[in-house]
């Protein structure tokens, strides 16, 4: 199924939640929708599923206009953020639901349904949980059941809203690998929402970065990392270090900054803003640099060094402990960025308003 979304807009009362979304998802593709909380990801998913409607724009799937089509007729597998398993039904009945509610003429026989559910329970690796109620399951198990319930109707399109959001790290990693397998086995066009970049990059063929109801960038992990399309994407990818620089012949210049490893930009000379990730900065001792090492702490694998300038500006730098040079407090170091993005100052100001928090994991209630 090829999903073509064009100029989709949606507002709730005064808030514009989607401000013109254009996106095409190819048949069988696995696409991640990545963005901070409140950027409209869930709303977009719901519109594709037929649980919400846009104010304007188009949604065409395999050449058919889907907007007039009720959710029941779209054959979409939707996995909800908090699973939404039916609490009064066993795992088996939850998975079978989409088959047992079909009108008599289209409904498979009881034995066919049971066989289908057994197959899915096997695929989900939870045959032993068939007769439990959702309240008796762990988060990861619920997630599998939710996916099984969605897969039972053999959906043409699979939509997952933060499928691993509420699970702990080890289970997330397992389920990620497993979701990839499921995707390969079923071949259904899949769109999943996440606010975790690692998850998006590891799983998806293509990543769509959303911010404030707009698509900021579409690309592969490397493209988005190395060439963020906007200050928003740069910040969201973890470039929390922002330094005012002067561009000269496409290269950023500032006191205590050695930007020779960055590509030259095709931008006019003048003031600009440099965006850096703390883990993409190397340090070289340089007595002439205004950056003084004021603090360092190790978490075993990484050293977090904090450099401070006389005006109080601080720059965090993350270094691999085993390959880091010996750093001594009070010494001056030059910043040597390995990758980084430069944007003209006016572009920065325009997008400056809401700052996502890329390092802190989003808190959920």
């Amino acid at each position, binding site marked *: 199924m090829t999903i073509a979304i064009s100029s989709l807009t949606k507002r709730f009362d005064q808030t514009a939640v989607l401000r013109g979304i254009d996106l095409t998802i190819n048949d069988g593709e696995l696409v991640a929708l990545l963005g901070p909380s409140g950027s409209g990801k869930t709303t977009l998913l719901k519109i594709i599923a037929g649980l919400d409607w846009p104010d304007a724009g188009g949604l065409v799937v395999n050449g058919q206009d889907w907007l007039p089509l009720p959710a029941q007729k779209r054959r979409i597998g939707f996995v909800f953020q908090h699973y939404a398993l039916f609490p009064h039904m066993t795992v088996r009945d939850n998975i079978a*639901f989409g088959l047992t509610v079909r009108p008599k003429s289209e409904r498979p026989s009881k034995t066919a349904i049971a066989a289908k559910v057994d197959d899915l329970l096997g695929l989900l690796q939870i045959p032993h949980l068939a007769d439990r109620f959702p309240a008796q399951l762990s988060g990861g198990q619920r997630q599998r059941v939710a996916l099984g319930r969605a897969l039972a109707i053999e959906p043409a399109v699979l939509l997952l809203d933060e499928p691993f959001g509420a699970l702990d790290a080890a289970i997330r990693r397992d389920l990620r690998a497993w979701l990839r397998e499921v995707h390969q086995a079923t071949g259904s066009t899949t769109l999943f929402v996440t606010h975790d970049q690692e998850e998006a990059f590891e799983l998806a063929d293509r990543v769509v970065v959303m911010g404030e109801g707009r698509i900021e960038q579409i690309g592969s992990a490397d493209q988005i990392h190395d060439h963020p399309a906007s200050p928003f994407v740069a910040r969201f990818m973890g470039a929390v270090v922002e330094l005012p620089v002067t561009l000269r012949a496409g290269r950023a210049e500032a006191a205590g900054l050695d930007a020779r490893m960055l590509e030259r930009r095709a931008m006019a000379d003048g003031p600009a803003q440099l965006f850096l990730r703390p883990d993409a900065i190397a340090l070289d001792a340089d007595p002439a640099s205004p950056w003084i090492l004021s603090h360092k702490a190790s978490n075993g694998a990484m050293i977090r060094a904090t450099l401070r300038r006389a005006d109080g500006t601080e720059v965090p730098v993350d270094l691999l402990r085993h390959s880091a040079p010996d750093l001594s407090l009070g010494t001056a170091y030059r910043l040597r960025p390995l990758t980084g993005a430069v944007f003209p100052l006016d572009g920065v100001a325009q997008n400056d308003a809401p700052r996502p928090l890329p390092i802190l994991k989003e808190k959920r209630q």
Partner: protein
Amino acid sequence: MIHAAAPVRAKRVLPGFTLSLGTTLLYLTAIILIPVLALILKGAEIGPARFWAIVTAPRALAAFQVTITAAVIATAFNAVYGLLMAWVLVRYEFPGKRILDALMDIPFALPTAVAGLSLTALFSANGWIGQFLEPQGISIVYTIWGVALAMAFTSVPFVVRTVQPVLEDLDPAFEQAARTLGASEGAIFARVVFPQILPAWLAGCTIAFARSLGEFGAIVFIAGNLPMKTEIAALLAFIRLEEFDYQGASAIALVLLMFALILLVVSNRLQAWAMRFKGI
């Protein structure tokens, strides 16, 4: 050495736990346990043979029958109407919704005698509503339908107010999930929504039924209180008391109490069954 003397123990949530528990237990004993106990002892005094004679006397049997029949009718009506009302109040936005919501509490707030009087005025042969019903051969006042009407009026909030919060808390994602899975709106209600409000609905219906069995004030005005026809059990107990027949009064009251207790047990069982999926 102060810290050494302080015992290491988790702090109670309630300050003065012993005092507050003591007070509530004392109150419970005085207001509920002692009267019930007195009633049972009074009944026991009578002796089984006499007790049986009192409660199976034709007039008493008729009173029980009227009471229970009318309570069943009233509860059946409230079960449907109360559910519908809760649904409308939770799921739809319309002008005057707040007022309607507030009106639902009137049966609680209104003195039952006032309710009885106004219902009688409305449904009597020349009342606002009665004048249309009477020509059709439907009489409400002074019939068992009047009794049921009064019961329904005073007990409907129990159903509405128990179902409403549960319905409000029901995550819309359940219905959305069912929709994406292809369920029709009817199937969504029957298989996803209703099973989840069933425990609350059963609880509401039980309390409404129990309340109807014991309702007195609203009924006596509209029922006409004809012995063997529209006389309810609570009124019969009251009449016996007025005749200084304490034994007769407490025997009847004891039967009502038994009904209420059986009802509570059955309802608890039903609710436990309906909530079986919530257990861990």
